[in-house]
């Protein structure tokens, strides 16, 4: 679990993590938003379904993959939170939607 430091940036942005609106400091990544929302893991691995949390936070490890605004497999540590952003944890491999063009 993570929390904000007492003198955190007062400028906040509202994002939606797994359907719940939370406020995060401006500049925070989508990955940070998931951690602030109280989730200990951000994805389940495609191979064995193990829970994972971000490991590197700088775009190297891909353990922070999440669905952002409907697009799966995004590196959430490299995406800055924007107002209204919809963030979902990624459970195993991305789903291929046959109805999508």
């Amino acid at each position, binding site marked *: 679990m*993570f929390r904000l430091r007492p003198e955190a940036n007062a400028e906040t942005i509202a994002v939606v993590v797994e359907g719940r609106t939370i406020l995060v400091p401006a500049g925070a990544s989508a990955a940070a938003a998931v951690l602030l929302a109280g989730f200990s893991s951000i994805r389940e691995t495609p191979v064995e379904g193990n829970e994972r949390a971000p490991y590197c936070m700088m775009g190297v490890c891909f353990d922070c993959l999440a669905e952002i605004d409907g*697009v799966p497999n995004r590196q959430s540590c490299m995406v800055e939170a924007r107002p209204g952003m919809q963030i979902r944890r990624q459970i195993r491999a991305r789903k291929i939607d046959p109805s999508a063009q």
Partner: protein
Amino acid sequence: MTIGLAIVGAGPAGMAAAVLAAELGIEAALIDEQGAPGGQIYRGIERSQSNSPLGTHYLAGQALAAALRNSRVEYRPSTTIWHIDPEGVLYLESGGRTDILTARRILLATGAYERPVPIPGWTLPGVMGAGAAQILLKTGDLVPEGRAVLAGQGPLLYLFAAQLARAGAPPIALFETTPLENYFEAVRRAGNLWPGRRMLLKGLGLMLAAKRAGIPVRRGVRGLRALGNRRLERIAWEGGELAADHLFLHEGVIPNVQASLALQLRHEWDEAQLCWRPALDPWGQTSLPNITVSGDGGGIAGAEAAVLSGRLAALGAAARLGHIDETERDSRASRTRQALDRELALRPFLDRLYRPAKSALVPAEDDVIACRCEEVTVGRIRRAVRLGAPGPNQIKAFTRCGMGPCQGRICGPIVSAVIADTLGKPIADIGTYRPRAPYKPITVGALAALSADAGD
């Protein structure tokens, strides 16, 4: 249209190179994956406040970022480079749109990332890099809730301990994994420490700050393990166990060579820093005439050295592009080189002191995950080696290790070390993965949108 210089990465090296290149009259573009300048060391720098718990050395990045913003550099943030043609064509993606940039010269300033630390349990939620946790603090003012332990070695570990204490979230313990013989070896081989005294004092200051903050330090920790069911619950080591919610690991940083390897630049194994790095001349020139490397991507030397090597690369590029002659290049470079020598003076001492223990490079247990993406264990790699897979690229085919989304960035160093250990050969003889484009995943749509004439 072809520009003079394309710079990859807006960390200290890339920012400094871009600003000087523009001053020298080069038409320069700076491409960076992040939305704001700073790289990892100065990540979030433009939002930082003067009372930041990150401290004065971090705030030094503000001037670099401001200089970039005030320059004539074409700065392209939030842009991913997914392929570089050695002839000078860069394939970009930004916001789902692809683009092509052609440049007479390319400077790779791709920086470094934390050396993966494959201890048992390192894939459990609750375990992350110390630098990763520091990025959460830099970008979003996040601090760990509950009991955090910092484990590993190197200046960043002590720095982050002090920063967490200032941010109101001191770790419950700092475990130093430095093998005790490293202290003797570092002093014995260090030679003259006087030129590096400023950096040495800075390091001692960091250790003192952690001590003043009342953080218990345990030295010579061996056999570190992360334990828990679905997330971290306990940390164990030879001689003890401790309940914990967070484990932040750090065994130094290694050059980010994904792009330079994909470009098949000549690389060398650096036995002092235990990493691969591109072979460079004093101007950062690689084995390809139009490509240079500066900053930690060419060998670990720190942010201040990265700024200086970025400036040298800009001077080198300006001479090659005909903006200045070699006499002017050399005269402008001489003071920069002197400053760089001072920055590098302490490096042999630091490299030897913080040389990771073998157990941090090659997990002793076969059931430890080596490839986090494809969940391939050390034991499976060893078995594939015994079946005849001679190197990292064959291990990929045998086990899928390195074929997940990170494309071997995390498992690469581990796989090479495990193969070397299994065969009883030096890592230099084993080599490393040969990464390929796309360097980062792109959608089929973005790829298809690349029009055939875009490069003309």
